[in-house]
């Protein structure tokens, strides 16, 4: 488990304890409600994991390094944005990969665009997100993040 997970557990335990001291019945009711929404949401979320598992098998860090090389040019920018938008990667894999890409000669703006798209655009979540909220909402959130990634590229181009 990561440190962030421990913190999450600690905060939840503390709040549960406070809640329990203040009102036992309310706490019980809350936990039952939480469990209920868990069982309602899981069927929507589970198919996602299979998809993410397949993606992670195909789009490995090595694959990305080979695509985002120093000579990839404008196409490389586009590729970084697209690959970043489609795939999913935990941050502790993504950022070291970013460092490696830079060390291998990839340009700063290109790496920035890739990392931002990777973190903020979540096309893998699209199916679940459009079911839970709405298609329009899911498209808007991803679109805003994608435009954001392009703007970040431009900003980094100016600064570096």
């Amino acid at each position, binding site marked *: 488990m*990561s440190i962030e997970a421990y913190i999450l557990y600690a905060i939840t335990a503390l*709040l549960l304890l406070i809640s329990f001291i203040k009102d036992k019945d309310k706490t019980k009711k809350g936990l039952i*409600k939480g469990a209920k929404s868990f069982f309602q949401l899981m069927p929507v979320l589970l198919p996602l994991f299979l998809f993410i598992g397949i993606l992670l098998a195909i789009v490995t860090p090595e694959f990305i390094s080979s695509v985002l090389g120093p000579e990839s040019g404008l196409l490389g920018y586009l590729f970084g944005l697209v690959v970043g938008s489609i795939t999913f990667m935990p941050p502790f894999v993504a950022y070291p990969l970013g460092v490696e890409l830079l060390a291998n000669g990839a340009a700063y703006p290109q790496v920035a665009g890739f990392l931002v798209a990777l973190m903020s655009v979540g096309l893998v979540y699209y199916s679940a997100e459009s079911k839970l909220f709405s298609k329009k909402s899911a498209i808007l959130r991803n679109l*805003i*993040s994608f435009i954001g990634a392009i703007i970040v590229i431009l900003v980094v181009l100016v600064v570096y």
Partner: protein
Amino acid sequence: MLKFIKKNKFLLLSVLMLIIISIIDITLTYKAFTNTWDQVLSMLMIVPPIFALIGLFDVWVDRETVIKLMGSNSGIKGMALAFFLGAFSAGPTLAAFPLALIMLKKGAKYSNVLFFLMVWSSLKLPIVFYQITTIGFKFSMIINLTMLIIFVLGALLSEKLFKKEELETLQKKAINYSK
């Protein structure tokens, strides 16, 4: 049958991809399954606290409070709170969806919920710290400040793009998911 296909497009797409990669290289399939299992496990690790928090939120925080703090007239304060909640979080964006739903259910403004989701996806503190230690302070800050501005503007703009009825449907859906 058609309805089943329509409802499970995503699952069917995954199965199709599995068949294709099995033909290309069976070790890829094996890897895909191990990855899936790892993902499910890591999700299950953070799921109990998330849903406990949702339950507690549901019973302790009443609608009026949420409307006052994050509702349509909450202004900058509502946005600041959305930022705070998104930044002090842990886990993948997927884990934020149930929390966003309960916020909507309790009457939070759509733009605030969207902003919360976007901050969670890329500006949460654990990520920012990790960013700084890997790609450096300057590079991280350029990226994060730019994204923060885009998220604020994007969230405000999105709210405008929704009709009143559409926002009401969103809220109704959210209520259905946590009865």
